[in-house]
């Protein structure tokens, strides 16, 4: 029996029980649609993160305490401090900028308004990296940091809430954790992100030297640096390691990562994320596939006599096997095609409603098509095998 005839036969027997075929189809449609839309969520997220990271510039270098070692060995790792950043400014000629960062939550109060916002404790390095982001006022100077001046720079969103559009924030005194700070700068608003309001808009910068009092520690979470240019990234990383070894000893361990390697790691992580999401969608495909198998088994039982007749007039095992297998595959492929369309529509809907940048990749469509055909074969082969191995005499007698 030719391929064409198998397909024709499969479609005609699916047509004879329309409702049943449609319901079985629905299982596959939903399964494939969820694979497609789940993967589009993951893929969209991946692209967004990658895009944002590559926006950072290729000459970025991050230095962090080796938290992994801390977690593994239980011991305390070496901490980074403001002094390390100062030493790097002097000792690493390949670096253009160095800035420290430590995160914390602070309460910012002006008049009656009080907001809990995230604070970035940083230093004069901010001036070289965030210059473009400044809306008005100025950024920290070395003196601000060293002298522990009571100054702060606030995000655009926070400035709007505290001072409104008319009042100028610059020079105003706000209370940060109860202490008076003078606002010396306001950052530009960055607008909404996929999570809603951009947290950067509701944050404050505070000189790192205040962090001991406010967070209880001198430690710096990370130091971000920029190499003079992309070609000097490697050289700069070596210089950083040299400075740190000098200050903390040869056994000290810090993670010195370039933006390229961070990008790579993030890509790997987000890709795994996509695969996991796809896997969650795959579970519903599995359920749909079991539905196909269930219906095919019922169908084989119902059509036992038909199998007997076909065998009596000369159908070989392979003919019967193909007949039923093609029915299952046809169900899954038609369901798969409809699922791709539905999944695509679902992805666009998610993008619209949840403001999440979904992306239907060729990869996810390929995965969907392969899993649909695989489901057809996997869940169709047992019923088809059962049909093919029916004894013709028994099958003919079946009522």
């Amino acid at each position: 029996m030719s391929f064409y005839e198998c397909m024709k036969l499969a479609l005609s027997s699916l047509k004879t029980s329309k409702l049943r075929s449609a319901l079985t189809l629905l299982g596959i449609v939903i399964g494939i649609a969820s694979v497609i839309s789940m993967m589009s969520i993951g893929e969209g997220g991946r692209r967004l993160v990658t895009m944002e990271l590559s926006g950072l510039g290729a000459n970025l270098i991050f230095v962090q305490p080796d938290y992994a070692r801390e977690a593994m060995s239980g011991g305390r790792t070496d901490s980074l401090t403001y002094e390390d950043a100062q030493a790097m400014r002097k000792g690493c000629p390949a670096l253009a900028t160095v800035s420290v960062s430590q995160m914390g939550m602070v309460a910012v109060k002006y008049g009656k308004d009080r907001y809990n916002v995230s604070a970035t404790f940083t230093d004069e390095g901010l001036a070289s990296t965030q210059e473009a982001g400044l809306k008005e006022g100025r950024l920290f100077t070395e003196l601000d940091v060293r002298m522990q001046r009571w100054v702060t720079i606030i995000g655009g969103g926070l400035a709007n809430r505290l001072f409104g559009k008319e009042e100028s924030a610059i020079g105003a005194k706000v209370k940060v954790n109860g202490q008076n700070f003078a606002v010396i700068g306001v950052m530009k608003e960055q607008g909404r992100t996929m999570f809603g309001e951009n947290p950067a808009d509701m944050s404050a910068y505070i000189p790192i030297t205040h962090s001991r009092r406010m967070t209880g520690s001198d430690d710096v979470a990370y130091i971000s640096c920029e190499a003079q240019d992309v070609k000097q990234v490697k050289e700069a990383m070596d210089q950083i390691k040299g400075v740190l070894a000098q200050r903390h000893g040869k056994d000290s361990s810090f993670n010195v990562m370039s933006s390229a390697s961070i990008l790579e790691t993030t890509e790997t992580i987000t890709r795994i994320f996509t695969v996991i999401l796809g896997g969650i969608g795959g579970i519903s495909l599995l359920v749909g596939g079991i539905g196909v198998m269930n219906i095919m088994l019922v169908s084989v039982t119902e059509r036992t006599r038909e199998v007997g007749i076909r065998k009596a007039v000369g159908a070989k095992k392979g003919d019967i096997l193909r007949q039923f297998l093609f029915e299952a595959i046809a169900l899954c492929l038609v369901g798969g095609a409809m699922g791709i369309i539905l999944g695509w529509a679902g992805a666009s809907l998610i993008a619209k409603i949840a403001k999440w940048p979904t992306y239907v990749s060729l990869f996810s469509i390929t995965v969907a098509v392969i899993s649909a055909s695989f489901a057809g074969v996997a869940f169709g082969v047992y019923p088809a095998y059962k049909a093919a191995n029916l004894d013709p005499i028994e099958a003919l007698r079946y009522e």
Partner: protein
Amino acid sequence: MIVVQDVEKIYDTGKVQVAALRGVSLEVESGESMAIIGPSGSGKSTLMNIVGCLDRPTSGSYLLDGRLVNELSDDELAEVRNKKIGFVFQTFNLLPRATALENVELPLVYSGVQSAVRRERALSALERVGLGERADHRPNELSGGQAQRVAIARALVTEPSIILADEPTGNLDTKSGLEIIGMLKKLHEQGITIILVTHNPEIASKTDRFVEIRDGLIVREGKGTDLGKRTDTQEGKGEGI
């Protein structure tokens, strides 16, 4: 030519072994017409299934046109059924959702005949049984006699050398039954070997010769014409030959 030698068929149901055939030998020449008679449960259907290559004997041998059927694989048996044998069943066994024409086409589908040729041959087979006009009807739109004629057309369409008819008139009224028998007789005149399984001696008497089976053994053989004179109950006295 059919040569069955000491054929036994034992069904193993796990606990008990049931012998459906206990050493049957039979020869049917090409072009002969023969009836296998016997009460239900005698083993006549089992014999027909073996002769029809739907089943294999447990022991003994079966030569069909010089070929040892015992050793054939399932697929080879299917091919033999497709090429050499046409079946006519008591319950017609037509595909209910297919038209008469599609039903007749079915054996040709499995012998790989092109769709256009298939259609043509199926139509001419239907015309041979006088149902050319009913090609587009489904089995439920046909009378019992017509359905059985479609089944005969299906049996004929591959131009087999043997037609096996298992109680072909069992579900039909007398008139339609006679029509069917007449049709089989005509096919026999055209040179096709006809093997008829029946418990009706009246119908069996229309064949060249008969064998009678009881409890898995051939108990009597004779000319078809001998049967017409007897009734069903008298037949039983033949035991012990």
